[in-house]
């Protein structure tokens, strides 16, 4: 740093990061995770799942137009949105769990920003070469080589971005049809707009913003600090082993330096452009690449591995004073993570039970309250109800409505003879239903009487009920 009298700059250009290629256990894990997560993302819309002639055959489909969500054998209707809410809560608590146990493991391995940036850096390396070649090209003035290489890189990035935006829209409509429409320019402007927007964001975030998204844009690094404690596994530099850093020079006494030879391997491979030897910091996404890089160096100079490694804060003081660290498992299994796991599992279990207990019919009743009741000529009292019948089945079925407990209350429907109404396949029907209490009966005279309306399917054992209220003359 220069002298402190110098006026500090108000604005700072980004210092470009050119991560060097690295080999090792964590790098391999990250390659596999990248293949796995991108595979799920790009391929899922193309899985087919036969649901009969009346329903779409796409395994995972968010059908916003018809307000249905299909997930393999499960079909979710809008009124069952609590399943989605439950899954989101589970995802949130899952993040709490992983963060409290393993630190920013989401950021380092699974976050789309990390995965796509990793993919973009891979493309960059294939086209321009490794760190030194990229640095050299970056500092070169614009010329034929730079234009060719940068142009190729940006083109490939754009294609990846388009594939990313393209895969996204396939989740919302039948994928093969949409692909055909997209190619023949028949698809809706919304589809093209969405693809364009996601292409642009993927291109910019993966190619140019990169680590700045995590440092400036993402709220998660800030929130995570509240979830980490001294038992959280995170990446540390063992400075008591490494310092004083530096190369062993001729004439210097053996042991005048620590294990760190200040080779900068850990800094050069870091996709965030930080120095892990400064300690844990906000910009570190704990991707483990510095561990791989340092282990490689330690092997080469014949020192034990683990100068940089995953460890918990409590182990630092333990190791510093020469004691053995606690086992990883003792850090991971502690009351906090067990509580998170219990809540997470409890919600999951509840959702599963709800999923298997639900019936494929549903009814909701909105009593007409203006007026509360109508007196008919013969003195009987009639209430109206707007009833919504949902047939969550691929076949059209006949729904029969009835009131069982009150023999003096008759049920009839507007525009339909009898008590049976046909509801189309996977459809809902709004039906005005009347309950009429015979003249002089208790139900007709009382202010209000609780009634239970039953719905059953003709020829099936499926039935359900809803409780509502019958309003009388109030005498």
């Amino acid at each position: 740093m220069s002298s402190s009298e110098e006026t500090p700059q108000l604005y700072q250009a980004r210092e470009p990061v050119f991560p060097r290629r690295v080999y090792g256990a964590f790098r391999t894990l990250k390659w596999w995770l990248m293949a796995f997560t991108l595979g799920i993302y790009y391929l899922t819309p193309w899985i087919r799942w036969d649901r009969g002639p009346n329903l779409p055959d796409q395994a995972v489909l968010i059908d916003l137009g018809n307000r249905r969500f299909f997930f393999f054998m499960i079909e979710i209707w809008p009124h069952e949105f609590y399943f989605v809410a439950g899954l989101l809560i589970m995802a949130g608590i899952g993040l709490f769990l992983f963060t409290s146990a393993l630190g920013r493991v989401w950021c380092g391995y699974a976050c789309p920003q990390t995965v796509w940036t990793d993919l973009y850096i891979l493309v960059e390396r294939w086209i321009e070469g490794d760190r030194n070649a990229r640095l050299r090209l970056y500092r070169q003035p614009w010329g034929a080589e730079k234009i060719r290489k940068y142009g190729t890189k940006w083109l490939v990035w754009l294609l990846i971005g388009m594939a990313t935006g393209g895969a996204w829209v396939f989740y919302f409509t039948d994928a093969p049809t949409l692909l055909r429409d997209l190619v023949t320019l028949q698809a809706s402007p919304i589809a093209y707009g969405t693809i364009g927007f996601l292409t642009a964001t993927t291109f910019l975030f993966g190619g140019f913003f990169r680590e700045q998204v995590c440092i400036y844009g993402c709220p998660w690094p800030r929130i995570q600090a509240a979830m980490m404690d001294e038992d959280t596994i995170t990446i540390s530099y063992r400075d008591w082993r490494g310092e004083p850093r530096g190369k062993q020079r001729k004439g210097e006494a053996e042991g005048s330096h620590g294990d760190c030879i200040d080779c900068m391997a850990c800094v050069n491979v870091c996709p965030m452009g930080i120095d892990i030897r400064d300690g844990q910091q906000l910009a570190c996404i704990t991707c483990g690449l510095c561990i791989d890089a340092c282990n490689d160096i330690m092997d080469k100079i014949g020192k034990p591995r683990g100068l940089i490694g995953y460890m918990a804060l409590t182990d630092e003081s333990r190791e510093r004073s020469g004691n053995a660290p606690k086992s990883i498992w003792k850090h991971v299994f502690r009351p906090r993570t067990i509580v998170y796991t219990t809540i997470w599992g409890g919600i999951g279990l509840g959702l599963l039970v709800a999923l298997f207990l639900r019936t494929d019919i549903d009814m909701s009743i909105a009593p007409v309250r203006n007026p509360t009741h109508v007196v008919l000529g013969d003195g009987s009292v009639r209430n109206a109800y707007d009833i919504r019948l949902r047939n969550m089945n691929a076949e059209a079925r006949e729904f029969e409505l009835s009131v069982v407990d009150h023999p003096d209350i008759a049920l009839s429907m507007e525009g339909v003879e009898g008590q049976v109404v046909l509801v189309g396949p996977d459809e809902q029907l709004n039906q005005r239903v009347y309950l009429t209490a015979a003249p002089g009966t208790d139900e007709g005279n009382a202010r209000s009487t609780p009634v239970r309306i039953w719905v059953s399917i003709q020829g099936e054992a499926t039935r359900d009920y809803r409780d509502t209220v019958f309003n009388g003359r109030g005498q």
Partner: protein
Amino acid sequence: MAAPNKKHDKPTTGHSWDGIEEFDNPLPRWWLWIFYACIIWSGIYMIFYPAWPLVHSATTGILGYSSRGDVEAEITAADQANQVWYDRLTSTDLNAIADDAELQRFAVNAGAAVFRAQCSQCHGAGAAGVVGAGFPNLLDDEWMWGGTLDDIVTTVTYGIRNDEFPDARWSEMPSFGRDELLTPEEIDQVVNHVLNISGQPHDATLAAAGAEVFDYNCSSCHGIDGEGDIYSGAPALNNAIWLYGGTEADIRATVNNAHFGIMPGFTNRLSEAQVRAVAVYVHQLGGGQ
């Protein structure tokens, strides 16, 4: 090679909370560019869109955009889209509308809109009328002038007892008491007769005498048994539904002074399709015949 721990030499803001200090980091440069881009954008926006408030209006911008114009365009587009349906509504036979589920659905929704705007002031938002005040309940099973679709269309088109249209339904009940057509004793008797035929507590002796009074004075419109007559708009008196109240005092007041309820005709305010739509809407509220 960079000096180790260089970040720790960065200047701080000078603030210190429990020994925790804040780096005085510079803002990223791209943030500055976005800031400038926003300023340029706002300049372009002011040229193209309404921006500066004046005393009575605002600058219009060269695109001439206004949110009111947007709404107008949307309403015009909606009207044009509905025109197909209105055409179908007028060309389809009134009683065949219900056979076309789509058309029926349109008629009910369009009719509900008409009802809320034109009818709900008297008949109530729920079409239950005002019981005892002469605004009929459209949900029950009694119709003074008929409850078929055709009857309702006629009533809505020309109204009830208004001078504006010769075709309007017309009838007038005499004021038996005020005009001294009946003596107070006869009125007493006929009131008790009406209480009797509507199944309410009454004086049996008076009611028996009242039957004769009713026969002479009332039955030509209200029917021999008080069953009413839709051709003269005479309500049934032998049931539980009362337009102006069914207590002894209410009935006495009606016999004494009569009532003359007026409904406007809507043929000048509503299109034929709208009249048909509101008739379909009213017909399916539970009372249609």
